[in-house]
């Protein structure tokens, strides 16, 4: 059934669940490889642009802020603050922007019935996650070796925080991919919305810095801010007073993911084919 030499389409019929899942993973892999080609082409560094784009963004902003701003803010290294804030922020923004009209521009893919909308959006976001993670590692290495920041005190906490941001990003991108397919108004305002949502992501502040009266905005409505807070808690250790709740992040991310998957499985009739 899974033999590569078999050319009959019958091998894609009556699959068991594990075979279906394998097929899906293969399709997502194929989509990722294809996406790197369509987006970055074969010219110059090609595939490496996956890292290039976010690294220009993260690295550029990090360097600029490090130069312009005071080296410490509230007793924390400026560079470390920028890196821990910008990496999740770039991931979130790029993922949401990438998810808008993700199906209409890829309608040729839907000619193949093994490719589902969920696969398309998963591949796109995964590519974004890979790129941002590699960029983060490079920026981290650069800043650490130049002495502008220290390594995290607690790697596990930092990575789990980032993990929550990634998980939530998948869910929200799924939802956006559906909504932008249905509403032109939303499609056109997405970039504005992500810009307006910047303060809501908590990328530039620690929740502890803002007056207690307004903390709930980030603490209880923003899973991203919670994730960033968790990352920084792992990064700075006891130098910060973190405000995050694993419970809140888990439930919001799970619910977002659930709604997102549900919508992606039902987006097909709404896709405008070219």
């Amino acid at each position, binding site marked *: 059934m899974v033999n590569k030499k078999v*050319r009959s389409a019958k091998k894609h019929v009556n699959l068991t669940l594990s075979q279906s899942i394998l097929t899906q993973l293969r399709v997502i892999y194929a989509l990722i490889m294809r996406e790197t080609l*369509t987006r970055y082409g074969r010219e110059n560094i090609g595939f490496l642009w996956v890292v290039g784009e976010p690294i220009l963004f993260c690295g550029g902003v990090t360097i600029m802020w490090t130069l312009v701003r005071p080296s410490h803010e509230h007793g924390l290294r400026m560079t470390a603050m920028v890196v821990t804030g910008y990496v999740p922020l770039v991931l979130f923004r790029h993922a949401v922007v990438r998810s808008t009209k993700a199906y209409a521009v890829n309608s040729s893919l839907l*000619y193949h019935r*093994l*490719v589902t909308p969920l696969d398309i959006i998963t591949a796109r976001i995964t590519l974004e996650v890979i790129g941002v993670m590699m960029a983060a590692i490079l920026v981290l290495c650069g800043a650490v070796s130049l002495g502008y920041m220290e390594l995290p005190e607690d790697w596990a906490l930092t990575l789990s925080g980032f993990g929550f941001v990634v998980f939530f990003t998948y869910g929200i991108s799924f939802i956006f991919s559906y909504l932008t397919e249905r509403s032109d108004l939303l499609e056109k305002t997405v970039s504005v919305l992500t810009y307006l949502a910047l303060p809501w992501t908590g990328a530039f502040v620690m929740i502890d810095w803002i007056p207690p009266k307004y903390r709930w905005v980030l603490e209880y409505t923003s899973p991203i801010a919670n994730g960033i807070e968790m990352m920084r808690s792992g990064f700075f250790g006891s130098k910060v007073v973190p405000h995050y709740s694993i419970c809140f992040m888990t439930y919001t991310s799970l619910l977002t993911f659930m709604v997102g998957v549900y919508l992606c499985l039902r987006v097909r009739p709404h896709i405008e*084919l070219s």
Partner: protein
Amino acid sequence: MSRLICQDLSKAYHVGKKRRLILDRVNLEVNYGDRLGILGRNGAGKSTLIKMIGGIEKPTSGTIHYGMTVSWPLAFGGAFQGSLSGHDNLRFICRVYHLDYEETLDYVQGFAQLGRQFYDPVKTYSSGMHARLAFSLSLAIEFDCYLIDEVIMVGDARFAQRCEDELFAKRADRTLLIVSHNTDFIKHTCNRAALIHDKKVFLSSSVDEGIEKYYSL
């Protein structure tokens, strides 16, 4: 008995606030081995029907029961990413349909004979080359039923001959759904004919009768 059955298939598009019905509760049965020629005027809904059967567009209502594996519709555009080369598209299809890369490459190169242009972006292809690529890629996978939307007539004489061999000789048992305005071609290849008119599908008892009806519209 493996059959492709369309039950009460309807399709409506929304243009602005208006709802335009293209097909209205269409019923169609295709047996394994049928070669069904689909005739109809421009905009009658032939491509829409093919796309629905191919699973690209979801019907507004009604169901399709698949008793056989159906290829993607071979048509202009669609299926391929214009900015990628034919080779890239082939790799993608190999990954998605889990095919052996070397073997498929040999087959497609042998059939389509695109030469070095195989490594150029698809958008630079002529319509003939495009058709050759589309054909060879879909024939690389053995479907039970091929959906062909006008493409076949584009190729040159040599390619037409190879298609003849591959599709009608080697795969004589397969089901074909062919959309075309070329009545001679339909008469030559098909054993059944259907006419789409006024949102409905009319099955004819013979191909000749179908063609007659088409001309009398």
